[in-house]
Every structure is written in structure tokens, then in C-alpha cells.
């Protein structure tokens, strides 16, 4: 039995589905795979910066106050909410905010707190770069996957 992949391996839906699942699992926006004379490129979700959808807009805070995104926006990374809860910029009402626009941050840096069921969860950045924008107002509710912080990874 031949161990080499069959010629149409890339393009069977089972394989594609698996790739998409992997992308979702690792939160990848785009993959580009080559194998001999075959190539598959999958882009997920389009533009990474997204104003909350119609459904989310009703529940999330005000839409991000942003000008039309410049082309460079596609290089931005968005830190999204891993849970449902209330977004806080600082550890207490009298404390300084964890981050502000212009700050350089590393992946371990706590960028905000999301309170869920009376538990205050510190959310790490998960990326390095410079904070470009904070997309949610302090004390506002956030849903799973909601964009929180915009970071420029190249700065």
C-alpha cells in the first residue's frame, strides 16, 4: 500500500474540514500549504478587525470609535474575549488602568479583567506589540469572542 498522499488529498472536504478545525482551535486567520504541485490556502473570517455584529452590538458596549480602517489595519492583532462577563480596565476603581494606548506589551501582560460570576479573571495579552486601541468601555459587558484590544505586533 502506497504511503504517498493521493493526488486529490488536499481537496477532499474531510481534509479541508480538518484544516479549518485546526485553524479554529489555534485561532489562525490564514494558512497557506504547499505540497509538490498542490497548494491550498484558507483564509478565515476575512478582515481581522470587525465591529461587533448586529447581534453583538445590542449587548456589547458602543461600537469602536474608529475612522475607516487604513490598509495597514490588516496587520493588527485583536485580543478577543475568552469568556462572557464584564470588562474592567483596572483591578479596582481607584487603580491605574493595566494598559493604555501606546504601551508596549508582551504576551504575559495583563491587559484587563473580565468579571464572570463574581470571579475576577485577569486576561493576558497573548501577543507582543504596541497597544493601538482599547475597543470596549470600562464596566461594559462583553461576550465570547468580542474584540477587546487592538495591538500592532510590528511595533
Amino acid at each position, binding site marked *: 500500500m502506497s504511503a504517498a498522499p493521493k493526488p486529490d488529498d488536499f481537496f477532499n472536504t474531510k481534509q479541508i474540514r480538518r484544516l479549518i478545525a485546526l485553524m*479554529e482551535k489555534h485561532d489562525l486567520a490564514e494558512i497557506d500549504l504547499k505540497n509538490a504541485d498542490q497548494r491550498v490556502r484558507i483564509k478565515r473570517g476575512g478582515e481581522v478587525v470587525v465591529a461587533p*455584529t*448586529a*447581534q*453583538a452590538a*445590542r*449587548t456589547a458596549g458602543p461600537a469602536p470609535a474608529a475612522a475607516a480602517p487604513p490598509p495597514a489595519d490588516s496587520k493588527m492583532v485583536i485580543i478577543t474575549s475568552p*469568556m*462572557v*462577563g*464584564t470588562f474592567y480596565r483596572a483591578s479596582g476603581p481607584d487603580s491605574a488602568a493595566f494598559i493604555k494606548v501606546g504601551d508596549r506589551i508582551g504576551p504575559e501582560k495583563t491587559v484587563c479583567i473580565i468579571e*464572570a*460570576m463574581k470571579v475576577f479573571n485577569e486576561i493576558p495579552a497573548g501577543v507582543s506589540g504596541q497597544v493601538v486601541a482599547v475597543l470596549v468601555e470600562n464596566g461594559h*459587558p*462583553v*461576550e*465570547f*469572542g*468580542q474584540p477587546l484590544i487592538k495591538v500592532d505586533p510590528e511595533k
Partner: protein
Amino acid sequence: MFKRVLIANRGEIALRVIRACREMGIETVAIYSEADRDATYLQLADEAICVGPAKASESYLRIDRVISAAEIGNVQAIHPGYGFLSENSHFAEVCRSCDIGFIGPTPEAMAKVGDKNSARALAREAGVPCVPGSDGIIANETDAVRIARQIGFPVLLKATAGGGGKGMRVAADDQALAPAWQQASAEALAAFGNAGIYMERYIDRPRHVEVQVLGDTHGTMLHLWERDCSTQRRHQKLIEESPSPRLAPETRKAMCEAAVRLCKTAGYHSAGTVEFIVDQEGNFYFIEVNARIQVEHPVSEMVTGIDLVKAQIRVAAGEKLWIEQKDIVPRGHALECRINADPAPAGSSRSTPPVASGSGGIRMPRPATSSLPITTRS
């Protein structure tokens, strides 16, 4: 009455509950996974909150996220729908401790009727006939043989934590028993995480008839008569109808009264279904209780004229049931047909499922539309 309710479910039942709430002037908060982001029924809710990625275990089944959504959504109660967390007594418990109303039975009543084995004990206590069976989980193969001989072959092995026909095997004699027991245990463990098996006499060609019950927190327990669900495919219901086409009036009455008696004994309230099987001689035997509103509830609604979801909400808000048993007189005949999507056989061209629109006397639980893709949410 609640001002705002969160629906911890999706699809057809979410829409059903949203509609009931709207008609009652109650605001609604819907939750959704990323797979359901574009579902049209979400637009009917006052708010919609994303609770996770496509996988149900990471979204609809995440108690923490559902409760958080309830908190940021400012709701007074949660309707769990069916499936998902609807029969999860721990979830009902969490709701209670977070001071959020749970539109369903108490965690205690749910747990009592939820385990098929303990439900049988409850039935015996309430004087409700059960299929002759083991007095609990079968410990080992030796016990299995002994009990089977007591009950009388053929016997049916069933998973105590089971449902949907999984973890079930028939054994016609001693020889068939050991392999049947092993297979049933293995299947039960894989499907439900619980290998416990109990045993009953196998009833040949039974009719499957269930009773819709409805109770409040003021001591009233009613039944909305029966639904016959005998037409099944791979142990899954295909057609449900009311009244049952082959039930003598005395049997019908006795069965419904038995269902009410059982639920009263369990301290059960809200909507629920008590399942029976009826043998060829017309004897009925208790099988299990489904502590939730069911997919086929509209069948009972159509013959009785009672809105079960609104009743659930009213009862959960502490209201006394406004109907009396003598006033529940079924009229006409109602049928529900379940339309299933099977994977297309190899070589055939894919086609989207057919769509029919409801009209006069036909109720179409949506949201199956020709444009809604069938997503897999394993």
C-alpha cells in the same frame, strides 16, 4: 412575572420560547455559539450574546458562560429548552444559588426522576406499575443470570444513564445474556460515561405512549393526556400523535392518573413527560420521566389548546395554574412528523432539504429553511 428571560438553547426551541416570551411581554436574551451567529431567530430576541465557539461543549453546555450571559443580560430567569442543560440538576442548582429562576423542576425533583433506576423506585412507591425488572444496577454476570431467570426471558438490558436507544440489548436466554450485558455496558460507558445496566422483561411489539404533565408550586399537578410515539426509526421517535390510536378509554385514564401520581410523589412541577409502554394486552408499564419540555410538546398543545411554554414561565414565576383537570378536554387529532437529514449516500449529488410552509392547522417548527446550512456541532 419576569421582566427578562434568557433562553439557554438554540434553533427551534429557542425560537419557540422567544415567541412565548414576546407574547407575554417578557424581554428575551438569546445565546449563541459562533456556528449560530447568523441564525435568523436571534434577531427576534432583544439581545443576543455569544457564549463560545461552535462546539456545544464549549458554548451551550458551558454553565459558567451561560450564567455569565444571564448576569450581563440582566435576566430574572433562564429557560433551558430541551437537551443541553435542561436536565442537568447541577445547572438548575447553580441557577438557584445565583438567584436566577430556572424554568423547570427543582434540582431535587429533577435528580429524583432523572436516574431511570431511582425513578422506578419512585413509581413503585406511587403505585405505578413498572415492567418487571432488576431492583437496581446489575453488579455482575452471575447476578444477571439469576435476575433474568426471576424476571423471565426474554430480557432487555438498559443503560441507567441512557437514552435514544443506546446501551440497550435484548437477550433471549442464558447463553445470549453474557455477551449482551458486556456490549450494553461498553456502549453505555462510551455514550453516557456510566456503564451501569439494569434489566427488564422484554415486551414484544409494545406501543410507546407518554403522558404530558404540568404542575405548579401550589400543589396542583395536571396531565394534558397522552401522545403515542410508537412509530420510531432506530429507537428515535419519528411520529408522535394524540390521542393514541389504540388505547382503551380506561387504560388512557388510568395511565394519565398514574403519571400525575408519580410526579406528585417526586415533588415534580413545571412541564414534564412520563413515558410508558403498553403491551399487546393493553397493560401499561412505567419506563421513565423526561424532566423537560419536549420536542413534540406542540402535539399536546394542539389537542388541548394550552400553551405549555407560557404555562412553564407562569409556574416558574410562582403563579398558580389557572386550569383544572376537568377542563382539559382533548379535541381532534394532532400528529408531529420529524424530518431528519441523513448524510447523502456516496455518489449522489447533494441537495438541500425540502421546505414546506405551514398553513391552516399545520404548524411548522422552524428554523429549517432552505438557506440554513446543516452544521455539525460535535
